[in-house]
């Protein structure tokens, strides 16, 4: 339980006291039990936090789109329309839940759950701050890659089970798009793994501590290109415009969730907006220094952790803003252009980057380009 939020809190005096007393009372070591309870409480906290973020994501989307198109946007519910998400939530909950007569009932019910499940399970390895992490698995990045692809299964099943032609086309496009764009994402992550020498988020982030020039995006020219490939592929992974073909409203009505109403549609939407945050959080952790501040301030204490959490949150929100900005700036791609962008441009460039990073590691002994440029004056941080 080391390096996790439960391990962190178990070191505090009152909880140790609680563990000792309850162990004496029940007659067995209750560390695991108390740890489980801490995990459970913070799981709910993180889930609630991300659900709120996802809800505010929908408002941010509408407000920012309104801003970019010189409109006002939602402004009736609460100050600046800030409570719109509560109104939307109540509306979703009170709408009738209709299932098409000819749909595959089991798969139809399963699809939104799988979509939500993939996203919620990814939250477990997102490093919010040095100690606020549910599980610092030694295969963290790998786990995030694996479990987040369940979302694609949910989208495909949602499209298939509805027995509607629009849904089927949307689901098919969605599945093809998500699995295709997983290849550039995997290759970009592998590039970072080569640099960091480990696949846990902790290892990767700790090597980017300090000033922004220690971030992996500035490590060498290949990682700089790699970040943009990762970001573009993630847009496609989360079905965001200009890659929102699975739900292209001008072609497919509403794509894979055409037949979903009420809360099931709401859960699809919620999962989608949380996924954008989660995926941008992974991008921040891998390339933009994660939760690290430029200086070690109050590290290990609760205020220090909250500060780190704020850093992580602000960096992620900046990327979130860019995602929304892109949606309202670029027109949608055509489906064959989408596939050729992935397979003929992003994947070869990502492979080129991977080779470049591997050769850079061997040639320059893992030093970053700033280390090489200023190696005479100072030699701090960087690769080693």
């Amino acid at each position, binding site marked *: 339980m080391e390096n*996790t*939020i439960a391990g962190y809190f178990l070191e505090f005096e009152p909880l140790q006291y609680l563990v000792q007393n309850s162990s004496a009372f029940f007659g067995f070591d209750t560390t695991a039990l108390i*740890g*489980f309870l801490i*995990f*459970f409480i913070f*799981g709910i906290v993180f*889930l609630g936090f991300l659900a709120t973020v996802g809800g505010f994501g929908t408002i941010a989307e509408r407000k920012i789109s309104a801003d970019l198109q010189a409109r006002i946007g939602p402004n009736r519910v609460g100050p600046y329309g800030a409570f719109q998400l509560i109104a939307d939530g109540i509306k979703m*909950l*009170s*709408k009738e*839940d*209709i299932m*098409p007569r000819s749909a595959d009932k089991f798969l139809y019910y399963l699809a939104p*759950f799988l979509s*939500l499940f993939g996203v*919620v*399970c990814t*939250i*477990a390895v997102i490093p919010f701050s040095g100690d606020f992490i*549910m*599980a610092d*698995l030694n295969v963290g990045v*790998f786990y995030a890659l694996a479990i987040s692809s369940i979302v694609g299964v949910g989208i495909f099943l949602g499209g*298939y089970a*509805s*027995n*509607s*032609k*629009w*849904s089927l086309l949307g689901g098919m496009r969605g599945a*093809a798009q998500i*699995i*295709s764009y997983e*290849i550039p994402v*995997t290759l970009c992550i*592998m590039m970072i*793994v*080569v640099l960091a*020498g*480990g696949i846990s988020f902790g290892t990767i982030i700790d090597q980017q501590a300090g000033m922004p020039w220690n971030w992996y995006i500035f490590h060498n020219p290949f990682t700089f290109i790699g970040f943009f490939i990762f970001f573009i592929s993630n847009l496609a992974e989360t079905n965001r415009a200009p890659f929102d073909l699975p739900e292209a409203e001008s072609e497919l*009505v509403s794509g894979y969730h*055409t*037949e979903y109403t009420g*809360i099931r549609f*709401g859960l699809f939407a919620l999962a989608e907006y949380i996924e954008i945050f989660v995926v941008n959080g992974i991008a921040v952790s891998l390339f933009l220094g994660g939760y690290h501040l430029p200086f070690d301030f109050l590290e290990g204490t609760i205020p220090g952790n909250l500060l780190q959490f704020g850093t992580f949150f602000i960096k992620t929100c900046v990327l979130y803003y860019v995602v929304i900005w892109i949606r309202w700036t670029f027109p949608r791609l055509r*489906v*064959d252009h*989408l*596939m*050729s962008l992935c*397979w003929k441009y992003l994947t*070869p460039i990502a*492979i080129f980057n*991977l*080779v470049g990073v*591997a*050769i850079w590691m*061997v040639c320059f002994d*893992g030093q970053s380009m700033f280390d090489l440029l200023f190696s005479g004056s100072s030699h701090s941080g960087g690769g080693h």
Partner: protein
Amino acid sequence: MSNQSLNAFMPIIVMMVLAAALYGAALLVAHLLSPSKPGGNKDLPYECGEEPVGSAWSMFNVRFYVVGLIFIIFDVESVLMFPVASIFKKMNEMGEGTYILIIFLSFISVLLEGIAYCWKKGDLDWVKSYKRSVDS
């Protein structure tokens, strides 16, 4: 140390349970709040207001399967490359940089060969041209 690995994965099991609980709670609340009047034409799949023609479960576009197969090949290959990638730095620090680089590049060359083959066969095009499908 099975106990230790179980502990490491405990938060993940917790999140899985929470995902199920969130889904169940949302459905329960919706069930209590929402009306339920099934029947009528609202149970038909949406087809722009017309009566639906036939079932949607017809033949798929075969391109979808080709993309799926290419993906599986690439994904398995990248899974095999991850262990090599994760010891790359350590080997480089031990002075075995050239050795590990050659291993790594040989893995990547297999990947490149695969993508070049698919590209030439035209399998990377979403709409495979008629001429190419006759040739191959």
